[in-house]
Each structure stands twice: as structure tokens, then as C-alpha cells.
């Protein structure tokens, strides 16, 4: 612990002037020393990945800062430059916010991970094992077993617990309609991810059937979760795109977003960020360190970086 503050105080004024001058004359090639701001959302893989990317930038000699942010609202902040980047842009959940911000200007697309994502209605695997609704995961099975999925407020219909309406609007009600299931099925919009996980936990305890919106890669993969197989997705099959709506979700992309100044201010870090590419397995590994091994997010990131140097080192070159 160096207690040299009083002496260094005298340097401040001087150093302030010097730094002002030196800023004006920095060479363009080197990354700025201003910190790269990485957002922290509220699910494990994202948080660990934030620290992994931050750790990578720090190895490259950059300053990094982490800021907690709402996962929907963050795109407005990236646009304004208050946050530098986002490394997990999920197609169907954040695609809208991402493109909205892009249309307003200020956000750039920094490439796509090789991990594919799927966001779809599904059931916990034990629902299939217990054979509560014979024929699942094929969607046609739903025609005959809505009673298993009724709740007090569903008016005798089977219930799909969908994410908040802000995630995909009326996609699911339209799909029910298009598949001819609307007579016996209804959609309830949950308020957030917490509500979905709570529903999974309580359905499991009670041993009752439940159909929940979920995605992969996710921590629920570990407990077993099966997505319902709807008629395959084709371009333009959704109501919003002019189709009839009788199709499932596409395999989605997982993109990276950045503020438009990032390539100019931190060229080296930006290049590494565009090269950065995680697979589904790697994302699963990061999440498992926290969710299964109960590690702290920062420790998990440090461990992942140490174990996988061969993966991330080439990106920094």
C-alpha cells in the first residue's frame, strides 16, 4: 500500500496540462486510454462473457469499465456513446431494439457469433418423459391435450406462458390462430424472465404440465428442456411479414453491436471485438462455471480466460 498521495497531488495540475497537450497529439494507430464501457445484464453467461471480453481488452492494454444496464434499454446508450458495445444481441429478443437504435444512427453491427440461438415455446423434458401429452414435441400433439395445461385464469383453455409482449408482440397469439389451436389455447404474457423460471420451478414441484417460452443456450438446458417442433420457418411466413403465421421460430443469430466511434477510438480493440466469436458450447461453459459450480462471475471469467488462451489469444493479434 503506497501512501504517496500528498506528493502526487502536486503533480496533478502539471499532469493535467501535460495530458491535455498529449491528447491533442496522440498517434492514430494506438488505442485511446479512455475506458471501453461494457454493459452487465442480469443473466450469467452475459455477465461472465462481459468479464471475459473485458479481461481480453485489459490484456491488450486497454482500460475497461463495466456498467449495469437494462438489456433492452442498453441500445439507446450504445447509440449515445455512453456504453461502447454489446456482445450478446439475441435476434428475436433484442433484434428490434438493436435495429431501432441502428435506424436512429450511432450503432454499428460488429459481426456475428457462430453460436446459433433458438427462441421458442417448449416444455420441460420431464413433461415428455411422464407422457403428459402424448406426441410432444410435435406441435400436432397440442390439438388433443390442452386440459393438461389449463390454469385458473385461462378460462378452461390450455395456456402458453410467453415472455413480455415487448419481446415479440402478438407473434404467439397469431401463431395459435394460424395453426387452428386458438379455440383451446390462450397466450399469457409474463412480465419478465424471472416469471418464466419461477413457472418452470413451480410446475416441476407440482408435477403439472406447462408450456413456456424459453431459449437456448440457457441455464435451463442443464435441467432438460425440449422445444416444440412447429412447421419450419420460412422467410415471410410470419403475419408481420405478410405470411399466414403458421410456422415456428428460425434458428437465430447472436450478434455483436458497437458504438460508431469504437473503431476510430480503439482500432485494435475493435478489430479483436469483430474477430471475437463464441460457440454455443463455449457460452454454455461460461454459464456453467457460475450456475453449476457456483463461482463468482469475475472468478469464472478469469478461469475461463486462463483455460482457453488458445481460443482468445489469436483474436487479439
Amino acid at each position, binding site marked *: *500500500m*503506497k*501512501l504517496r498521495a500528498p506528493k*502526487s497531488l502536486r*503533480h*496533478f495540475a502539471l499532469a*493535467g496540462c*501535460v*495530458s*491535455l497537450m*498529449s*491528447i*491533442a497529439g*496522440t498517434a492514430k494507430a494506438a488505442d485511446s486510454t479512455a475506458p471501453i464501457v461494457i454493459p*452487465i445484464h*442480469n*443473466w450469467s453467461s452475459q*455477465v461472465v462473457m462481459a468479464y471475459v471480453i473485458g479481461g481480453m481488452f485489459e490484456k491488450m*492494454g486497454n*482500460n475497461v469499465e463495466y*456498467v*449495469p*444496464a*437494462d438489456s*433492452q*434499454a442498453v441500445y*439507446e*446508450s450504445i447509440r*449515445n456513446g*455512453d456504453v461502447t458495445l454489446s456482445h450478446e444481441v439475441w435476434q428475436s429478443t*433484442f433484434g428490434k431494439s438493436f435495429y*431501432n437504435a441502428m435506424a*436512429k444512427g450511432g450503432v454499428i453491427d460488429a459481426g456475428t457469433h457462430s453460436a446459433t440461438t433458438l427462441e421458442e415455446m417448449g416444455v420441460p423434458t420431464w413433461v415428455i418423459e411422464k407422457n403428459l401429452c402424448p406426441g410432444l414435441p410435435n406441435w400436432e400433439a397440442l390439438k388433443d391435450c390442452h386440459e393438461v395445461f389449463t*390454469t*385458473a*385464469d385461462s*378460462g378452461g383453455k390450455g395456456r402458453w406462458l410467453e415472455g*413480455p*409482449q*415487448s419481446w415479440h408482440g402478438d407473434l404467439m397469439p397469431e401463431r395459435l390462430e394460424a395453426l387452428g389451436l386458438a379455440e383451446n389455447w390462450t397466450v399469457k*404474457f*409474463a*412480465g*419478465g*424472465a*424471472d*416469471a418464466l*423460471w*419461477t*413457472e418452470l*420451478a*413451480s410446475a416441476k*414441484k*407440482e408435477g403439472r404440465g406447462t408450456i413456456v417460452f424459453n431459449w437456448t443456450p440457457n441455464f435451463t438446458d442443464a435441467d432438460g428442456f425440449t422445444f416444440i417442433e412447429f412447421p419450419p420457418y420460412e422467410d415471410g411466413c410470419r403475419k408481420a411479414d405478410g405470411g399466414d403465421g403458421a410456422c415456428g421460430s428460425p434458428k437465430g443469430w447472436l450478434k455483436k453491436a458497437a458504438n460508431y*466511434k469504437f473503431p476510430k477510438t480503439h482500432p485494435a480493440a475493435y478489430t479483436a471485438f469483430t474477430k471475437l466469436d463464441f460457440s454455443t458450447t463455449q457460452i454454455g461453459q461460461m454459464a456453467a462455471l457460475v450456475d453449476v459450480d*457456483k*463461482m*463468482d*462471475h*469475475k472468478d469464472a471469467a478469469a478461469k475461463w480466460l486462463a483455460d482457453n488462451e488458445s481460443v482468445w489469444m489469436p483474436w487479439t493479434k
Partner: protein
Amino acid sequence: MIELLRERKYLQFLLLIVVFLLMCMFIPATDGSWLWRLPPLFKQLPIAINNGVDYLMFDWWLVDVYDPDIEEYEKKPVMRQITRSISGFVLFLIELVREIMLGGVKTIVTFTGWDWATENQWARLPGLPWTVVAGGAMILGYRLSGIGLALFTGFAFGYIAVFGQWEPSMQTLSFVLIAAPIAILLGLMLGVWAFRSKTVETVMNPLLNIAQIVPHFSYLIPVMVFFGIGDHAGAIATIIFATPPMVRLTILGLKKVSPEVTEAGKMSGCTEWQLLRTVLIPTARRDILLGVNQVIMQCLAMVVIASLIGAKGLGNDLLIALNRLRIGLALEIGVCIVLIAIVLDRLSLAWANKQTDYFADQSFKERYKYSIWFSIVVAVGIAVAWVGSLFFKEGFNYLNIIPHNKGITTEPFWQAGVDWLWDTFFYTLKGFNEWFIVDVLIPVKNAYLGMPVIATFTLAMGIGYIVGGIRSALIVGMYLLFIALTEWWDRALITAYLMSMAVLISGFIGIVLGTLCAQHPTSTRILLTWCDTFQTFPSFIYLIPVMMLFGVTDTSVLIAIVVYATIPAARYTVVGLRSVPESLHDAGSMAGVNRVQRFLSIELPLSFPHIALGINQTVVFALSMVIIGALIGTDDLGQLILGSLSDRQGVGNGLVLGFCVAFIGLAIDQILRTWANQRKAALGLE
């Protein structure tokens, strides 16, 4: 007949209800009929607000600013430069406090720039070991109040450290230590200003009303656009949320100062400033202190919400824990928030209550004994931490800071508690839940949605007219008209349905509980402590067990709202009943009434205005919870406010939706307040 109707209010109500029911029955639910639903004329309003904000923030009055990072001149709007410099200043203060406690480099960077700090890695604030902070807080507690407060403070900080929540707690504390004083000062200044100028008060009153009822979510996006994301944005949102009660209570307190006191001050030759500082504010201290208490409570109640726009610390950790359903961990974090709230509250009360001893003739040692003690604590703490760094080799030093996942944890215990709750109550509650939803909630909800707009207006304005005359009727009508002209009238009806059910239940529980507890000073004190605890305890935590037991249904939403909205009902009932003078009790007893009669015909009527205000606050609390309800899953205004976070028209939508919620509250406030004031006048209380 007309005469009779004019005299008897209940007949007027009866007539109103008959008219209302007839309207409901005979007006058909046809789209396009103005009697059924008004056309959404204000549909463009959110877009207009949005464009306005965009213009202000991005296009208005552009100036060339050199951006050294990209070596180019950029056109930047002046407004943005102004708001960002405010942000920078607030952030600097927060970081300064934070780095004193935790260490870091930002404060130094502020003066030297990142380039210099990167080259000179040694130049960072070291941060105090937790033992020093805890010890310092204990000395402060002892100095301000005595051994009791010192021990409690020590316990609180000990708990935080031992459970491994030190770092996030200090991050939260540093943000509260800046937000709360700013809110208190701002509130005091605005309060004094409003006290001195009638015009200011008239202008400020509706603004305060709105600021108090608009759900905090709806100004998160505007705050984020204006001030950016980070601790400063969290602090600014918190200040907006926490200042109104301070202003209110300052005005209230100053108004209560008797003219004799003011005269005495003037006769002693006080200047305006002296009068204010040494006469008015000290005399109004009781109410102002209540304001300080409320500011601190509100600040900590905002910790979780503030983390959505970048405040670091406990709030963010809590959200992450809940996302994995780790209720035990979330609970420990919640307890930390409550402990910080109570410690700050008690310390600030003790500080404000401390009288200066003008005549003490103290020696050097006497005068500076606390500073000396603190210096000793610092020295010993640092020494111990240094010894610790030799002793603990694994990379973390328990005597400096106990890291996040290395503290002790009671998580398995709480998890077992939740399981036990489930095993014991689930099946009993399931039956109740189904009955409640099918036979109560769904019919009520349908009834609300089945009201033609003209019937709603008739009912609300009619009540306004009967209670407060034509003025109240018009005010209520204006509020409703705004909502009816947006495209969200149906959503607002659902919000009104949830709110009114919650207020019914909370009001009942609160009044009964308040009445029972008011019978004895000890039970009164216990109840008030509970109120403080639940007001700051983050409601997010009990959402999960509630959802486990009752599913993603309106029952869960109602329970979440009721837990929170019962607080003011209970608090005001207790305060109202306790403020009935003893002499009236005695007078009653001498007149030969028994306990029950005395309660029904003396205490209850006399405390009625208080209770009415309590219900008024219950409405406000219930409305502020619609957002939390939306996190469970509703289809009301709250859900849309939540959705506005990701919307392109987010700023406009969020604000207009927030106004809709606020106007429901203000309409009810108008009626209840007018009524309470009339009762007060009738009872000779004012």
C-alpha cells in the same frame, strides 16, 4: 324531493349509482361509438414528445466540439453538453466517496486524464479496509447518540462484511450518500421557496403530485437520454423520486411555526437568512426530520430500479441473483439494503436531534477525542489489514475486504424455508387461488372493462361533484379526459381494477392492524419499524415466492401490491389514533362510554382525516407498484411502461403512460383530499 336530495348526500350517491348502472346496461359496446370509447386523439402525443426530446438533445443549437479520440470536429448540441457536465459532476462525487471506501483510479483520472493514469499505475486511491469503515461508523454512532446506536451500527456493518456483501454495499452506500444529501438540500430549498412565495407553491403543488405518482420506470428512459447511463443517472432518477416528500414536509413544517416565534425572531433583529436558519427551520425540525427519514427510505427503495440504468452495487447483484431464482442470496442482499437504510436513518436523526452545547469549556483532548479515536481506528485497521496481507496468501485478505463468494451464507437455510412454505401451504392455497381468480378477480376485471366511457366519467365526476362541488368534478374530469384520449383507455381500466382491489384489501388490513397496534406504545413502535423495513425491502425478492405459490396470475400481482400498499394505511392509522388527545379519552370515560364506544364514537371520527390521507397514500403506493406487477405479468399500463424501455418511441410512450398512471392517482387524490379537508374543518381540527 329536490330539497331532500340536496340535503342528503347518500341519496345523491344512490341516484348517481342508479344512473351509472343504467348507462352500463344500455350503452352497447360498439367500436366507433363515442359513448363507448373516445377516439384516441392524443395518439400522436408520445411521438411529438419523442421528436421534441430528440431535437433538444441532438439537433438544437449545435456547436463544434473537438473530439480528441477521433481527431475530428463534431457537431454537438449544447443541451447535451450541459446535461453531460451535470452527469460528470455527480459521477465525480459518487466516485470520490466510493474510492475512499473501496479504492480506485477514477478520482485521479478526473484531474489527470486516462493517459497519465495508465502510465502511472501506482497513482490510485488505496481504499479503506472494512474494519476502518465499520469502526468509523461506530464512533460516529457513539458520538451522535450513544452506545446503543454504536452497537447497532457495528452489527450492521459486521453483517454486511461477514456475508461477503462489502463491495456492492459500499458501491450502493456511496451512491446513496450523494443522492440523499442532494435530495434533502434540494427539497429544503424548494420547500422554503414555496413557503415564501404563494405563486411558487401553486405552481409546485401539481408538479410534486405528479413526481410522486408517476411510476419511476417511466422516467428512466428520459433520464438515460438526458444524462447517460451509470451511477449518476441512477442518482438523478433517485433524486427525482426522493425529493417531493422532503419539499412537502418542509412546507408543512414551516407553515406550522406559530407567528409568535417568527415575531420573536424579528424583534431580536434577525435578517431574513438568520430568521430562516436559526428560527424557522429549527422550530419546524420535527416535520423536516420526517422528510429526511422519507428521503433516505425512498433512496434505498430505488436501489434496485436505479441499477437498471447503471447504478452499481446491491441492486444489480440482486437482479442477477433473482434471475437464477437464488432467493436466499437475494434475501441476504435485501437485508443489507434494509440495514443500510436503518443505519443512515438513525444516524441522520441523531445528528439532527443533537443540541449544540454553547457553554462547554472543553480541553483539547475532550474536544477532539472522537477524531483521535478515529485516527487510532484508521491506524490499527490499516496495520491489521497489512498483517492480514502477510497471513492470507490465497489472494484475498479477509481483514481488508471479504470477497463476494467467500463470506458465510445462509442461502441453503432460506431455500429450505421456501421449500417448506411450498410443502405446507401450496395445496391449501391452490384452492383459494382458483376460487379467488374465477369468482372474484375475473368478474371484477370484466366489469371494469365493460364500462362505457361515458358511464365512467359520470361516476367519477359525479362523486367529485357530490364531495367537492363543480370544481372537483371538473378537475377529475380533466384527468380522466387525458387518459380517455390516449389509445390506452382499456389498459388504464385494468390498472384501475388492480389498484382498486389492492386498495380495498390494503386499506382493510392496514386500518385493522393500525387500530390494534395503536392500543399500546410498544406495539406501535414495532409496527412503525415494520413499516420502515417493508418500505425499503426490495419487493422484487418476495415476488418469486409469491409467484411460486400463486403462479403468474393477478393474485400474485395483487399480493405484491398489497404488501407494499398496506404500509401507509397502517402508518397513518396509528399516527391518527395516537394523536387523539388524552384529555378526550378521559372526557369520554367520564361520560361513561366503554372501550368500544370510545373507539367508535371518539377516536375513530377524530382520526378520520388522518386515515383518509393514509388511504390516499395507499392509492399512490399501489399505483407505484403497477410496474412491479408488470414484472409478474399483467396486461395493464405497467406492462406498456416496461415495454417502452425497448421502444423506439420509448421516451414519449414512457412519459405519457406515466402521466396516465399519475392522473388516475390524482383524480382519486382530488376527491379524497377534499373530503378529508372537509372532515377536518367539521371536526374543528384546522
